[in-house]
């Protein structure tokens, strides 16, 4: 049986969207089967209405490249500004955008599963999920896939 990595993506901020996509596309390139289960806020990464505009918030985030005091970070527009700045830094290093990564996942046969429970709870229309994604599933299907994986990550 081929090597396999199973990833749960549970966060929908810009900074947390990249690691599962980078690891999965790299794994697939190395001949390792890769699948990502998108749950709760992580579902935004494969939501057509959101995935091009994921954000990073400066409030409560001491790791911003340019440190922003919380009292400034809470002002209107600061999250948008921080997100734009991070996207600019990514683009400068020629890091693909999130939509480009999703297309790459499809090209490399990385499996993308939307969590059915999240769709129900967050009232998200299945038509908003990218066409590259598989059918929705739940914890059972993910566990069945992950039981055969040598690496499992929760991000």
């Amino acid at each position: 049986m081929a090597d396999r990595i199973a990833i749960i993506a549970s966060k929908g901020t810009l900074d947390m969207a990249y690691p599962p996509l980078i690891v999965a596309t790299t794994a697939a390139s190395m001949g390792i089967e890769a699948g990502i289960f998108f749950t709760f806020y992580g579902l935004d990464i494969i939501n057509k209405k959101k995935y091009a505009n994921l954000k990073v918030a400066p409030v409560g985030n001491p790791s911003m490249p340019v440190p922003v005091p919380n009292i400034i970070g809470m002002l209107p527009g600061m999250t948008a500004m921080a997100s734009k700045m991070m996207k600019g830094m990514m683009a400068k290093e020629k890091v693909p955008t999130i939509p480009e990564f999703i297309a790459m996942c499809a090209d490399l046969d990385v499996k993308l599963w939307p969590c059915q429970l999240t769709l129900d709870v967050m009232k998200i229309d299945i038509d908003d999920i990218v066409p590259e994604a598989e059918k929705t599933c739940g914890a059972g299907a993910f566990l069945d896939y992950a039981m055969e994986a040598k690496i499992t990550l929760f991000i």
Partner: protein
Amino acid sequence: MSDAIDVQPDSVLDVKGLCCPMPVVKSKKAMDTIEVGQVLEIVGTDPGSKGDIPAWAKRAGHEFLGSKEDGDVFHFFVKKGK
């Protein structure tokens, strides 16, 4: 890194200016276009590739022949294994 490598590649992939994970992803796609036994030269500038490309080659079933550095530019030579 071995410096004395002198291999004539069958194909050359330019990933200069690209960073993780693109050198590995593009190397995979480039490998798909050549025949088993042929050699791919990957030319890049990402220092992380010094670890990533040999690891990718091993896992993907290819043979990492070696590499050389030319200033800030790295050259990796990988023979297609399967």
